[in-house]
């Protein structure tokens, strides 16, 4: 079985499991008292955010290793991971406002996490625009690695700066949903969803990586 086929099977499996997670989320997990059914989107939103972060982390790591080892496979992996990360970022950035509108009363707010994820999205976009703008594969790999490493180092700074900003200037509405006290049924559903999204990430990246292998670098 080729890499692409294996990736496809993993993706199909993950999608079936995701359907299972949603059956569990809708049927067997308790409805949140204040948020009602809107809270159910969290089982999609939070794991998508996790997968997006994971993608960026691995892009950065692969970039560092690429500059040291000069192995083209690492570059191909970084490219695949960045593309998949962009997709997860889109999922997170669309499900977020959908939930925020009924709960917070606004589509968007400049909260620490929101700003961080938006910048993550811009990083992914910039990374890919750069990849598309360089013709020479060797040059493209090096340039992309440089941006990937810078992006990885940047994320903690963005988080810190936005966090400082909001704690110095408190907003009238408390924006952070209370996460710690989760009933066990909800927690299990969420953890399952995390697992499924990680699996989805693996499946997507395997397929994207295989395409890169087959058709040169692009």
């Amino acid at each position, binding site marked *: 079985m080729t890499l692409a086929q294996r990736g496809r099977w993993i993706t199909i499996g993950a999608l079936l499991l995701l359907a299972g997670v949603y059956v569990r989320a809708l049927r067997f997990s308790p409805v949140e008292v204040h948020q009602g059914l809107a809270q159910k989107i969290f089982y999609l939103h939070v794991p998508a955010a996790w997968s997006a972060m994971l993608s960026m982390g691995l892009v950065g790591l692969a970039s560092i290793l690429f500059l040291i080892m000069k192995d083209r496979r690492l570059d191909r992996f970084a490219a695949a991971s960045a593309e998949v990360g962009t997709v997860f970022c889109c999922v997170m950035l669309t499900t977020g406002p959908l939930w925020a509108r009924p709960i917070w009363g606004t589509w968007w707010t400049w909260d620490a996490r929101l700003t961080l994820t938006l910048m993550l999205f811009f*990083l992914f976009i910039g990374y890919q*625009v750069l990849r598309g*703008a*360089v013709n020479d594969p060797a040059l493209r790999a090096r340039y992309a690695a*440089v*941006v990937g490493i810078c992006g990885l180092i940047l994320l903690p*700074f963005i988080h810190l*700066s*936005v966090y400082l900003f909001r704690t110095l200037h408190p907003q009238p509405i408390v924006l952070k949903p209370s996460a710690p006290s989760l009933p066990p049924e909800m927690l299990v559903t969420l953890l399952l969803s995390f697992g499924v999204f990680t699996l989805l990430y693996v499946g997507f990246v395997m397929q994207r990586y295989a395409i890169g292998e087959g058709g040169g670098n692009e």
Partner: protein
Amino acid sequence: MRELMRHTWLIARKDLQLEFRSRTALASAFVFTALVLVIFEYGRDPTAVPTIDLAPSILWVTFSFAAMLGLNRAFQAELENQALDGLLLAPISRTSLFWGKLTANLVFVALVQVVGVLLFILFFNVPVWRVWLPFLLVCALATIGFIAVGTLFSAMVVRTRFAELMLPVLLLPFLLPPLIAAVAITVKLFAGRPLSESAGWLRLLAGYDLAFVSLTTLLFPATVTE
């Protein structure tokens, strides 16, 4: 070390000399700064929004866009007649090449900032001179790290398609932390608060500068090596 500094200075001087002779980027940055300040003046309702509330944002929007204009210029000149190859063949280290470019960019941005602040005082009547020393420190700290990343990226984007467009797309996320910190400190300074109140922000800026100046110095050879 002394050799490194000397080479850095030579590169920076070459760039600045080139810029002062043609003055194209500098002139466009000055005009751009003046234009942005004028637009801001007419873009607000002076009876509803006091100048002092808007002042920090006005200043930093102007500075960051003007800096972007300067960064595009840094490696553009080296494209003609393969001047970059000549520089790379010269018996100087990559570090001094990068630091030279960085220094030239910093001088460029500093000049734009000086003119920008003078125009800003003139147009908006904000007494910046009362806090000039801490303000200078904030400007320097907020600019160094960001320009370091910008210099590194500009070395790459000149050799890509749509170079002029690439830089802002890549730089925007990197602009955010120094910009937020600089605006937050400037708000306090203009409100007459002491600099010690912004210690956390200053630490963030210093950390950002330290991290990105060293990281970009480390990564620069990867962008020019053949």
